[in-house]
């Protein structure tokens, strides 16, 4: 579904990604794990068009993502839940969700999608008129995921969904990712919480210092000595 080939990217004189190759097949859940500053967020931003790579190619179901204007990439079926959620804090939950269905194709299905999101997150229905910035971190994460789902995406990009959340809430967020997957959505998830993420994904890549250092099925990654020592603390 999504293919990255030898992608280089960075900000100004700083290079964050070096020749990254990555593939996500339809229906898969893929994780990208690695330490802080490895380039995980940059990877997500390159896919959704927030920054443009210096080299390499990105294709979504055969369409050249780099030839697509940034605001049209969501129309290719890529929805990005950014790091730190990035809700519109002084808009209501409902207006935040509405923004997720901004593109013309999505507007027509706004009501069905809203019903779907409210069904997935009944809490959001209760809070629909509340300002998004006044909710708890976990609720905001639900709202951010809901906003991305409003566009009826094929591929969901999740950037550190567990960051800054209490352990119980982290559990809930990963449960949620499982449920979203079960609905047939393809998921690419970036996480520092390696233990948790390897339980919900099929495959994972290890990204260190902007380079893919390894990949494998979730089971293989859990067994790998490097990952055990560096990330699982066992």
């Amino acid at each position, binding site marked *: 579904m999504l293919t990255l080939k030898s992608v280089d990217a960075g900000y100004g004189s700083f290079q964050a990604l070096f020749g990254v190759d990555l593939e996500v097949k339809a229906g898969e859940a893929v994780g990208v794990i690695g330490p802080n500053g490895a380039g995980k967020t940059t990877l997500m931003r390159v896919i*959704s*068009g*927030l920054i443009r790579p210096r080299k390499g190619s990105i294709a979504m179901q055969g369409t050249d993502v780099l030839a697509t*204007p*940034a*605001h*049209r*990439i*969501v*129309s290719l079926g890529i*929805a*990005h839940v*950014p790091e730190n959620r*990035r809700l*519109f*804090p*002084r*808009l209501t939950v409902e*207006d935040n969700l*509405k*923004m*997720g269905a*901004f*593109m013309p194709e*999505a*507007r027509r299905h706004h009501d069905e999608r809203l019903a779907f999101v409210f069904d997935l997150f009944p809490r959001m229905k209760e809070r629909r008129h509340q300002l998004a910035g006044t909710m708890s971190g976990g609720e905001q994460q639900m709202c951010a995921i809901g*906003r991305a789902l409003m*566009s009826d995406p094929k591929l969901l990009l999740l950037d550190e969904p567990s960051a800054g959340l209490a352990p119980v809430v982290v559990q809930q967020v990963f449960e949620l990712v499982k449920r979203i997957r079960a609905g047939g959505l393809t998921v690419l998830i970036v996480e520092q919480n390696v233990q948790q993420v390897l339980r919900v994904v099929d495959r994972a890549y290890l990204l260190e210092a902007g380079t893919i250092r390894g990949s494998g099925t979730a089971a293989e990654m859990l067994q790998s000595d490097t990952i055990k020592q560096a990330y699982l603390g066992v």
Partner: protein
Amino acid sequence: MQAFLDIFDIYLLETVINGILFGGVLALLALGLNLIFGVIDVTWICYAELIMIGMYGMYYLVHVYGVPYWAAAPMCILLVAGMGALLHFLVIAPLLSSPPINQLLATGGVLFFLQSFATVAFGVEFHNIGIQLPVLRLGEMNFSYARLLSFAAALIGMVAVYVFMKRTYVGTAIRAIAQDRQIMALMGVDTRRIYLITSALGGGLAGLAACLLVLLYDVHPFIGLSIGPITFLICVLGGLGNFIGGFVAAFVFAEIISLGGMFSDLEWGYVLAFGFFIVMMFIRPAGLLSRRS
């Protein structure tokens, strides 16, 4: 003594009501400027000059070419809306990533350009649109229909903007963009398009203001100098970019001018209002309704 009090109260009431009517027009003026600032983060120093051009548009359409006022008004609104979009496209968009001072100087340049253009094209004479509206008498009180009409139209204009901002996708995007610019592309929003629409909307509000002010004042190339400063002060007093703050500040200003003018000359009302502004800048520098950060 009792007779004096009766008259005094009536005058006071008349003055307060006239202040409210004036406040409606000021609130409309402030809304356009606030919209541009709040969404694009740019101050149109030449905002009042757009109004001036709109007033000339009304003068020429109605007085010179004999177009009925009701037909001329939408044309004038569209004209100034187009100018707003053009201003954004030609001047603001290329400077979006420049330091704010450059943007201020550029729109300041447009101010002098439009003033000089109006002087050359239309002359320095004062022109009146030539519509005399009657005066409404309520007991001892007099209200000009021009003020009543402009108040009502300003209110309708503001309600229309409110509904647009609350109900439509583009309106929601306009509110969202001010809160997080970077991620708008993730929503499928082309920020350049939203900026252009916002500029046209700001221009349209300036156009509506022009249609109303032309009923109250003569137009001349420098009328922007008497509209601009007070509009800026209202926006700053309400907190730049804060729509509700601007709305409240407009009425506060209008009442100070109106009541101050009742006890002395109208000019003293302005002196009081600007004095009040200076004091408030010490007490609440971020505006009347500033959010505590």
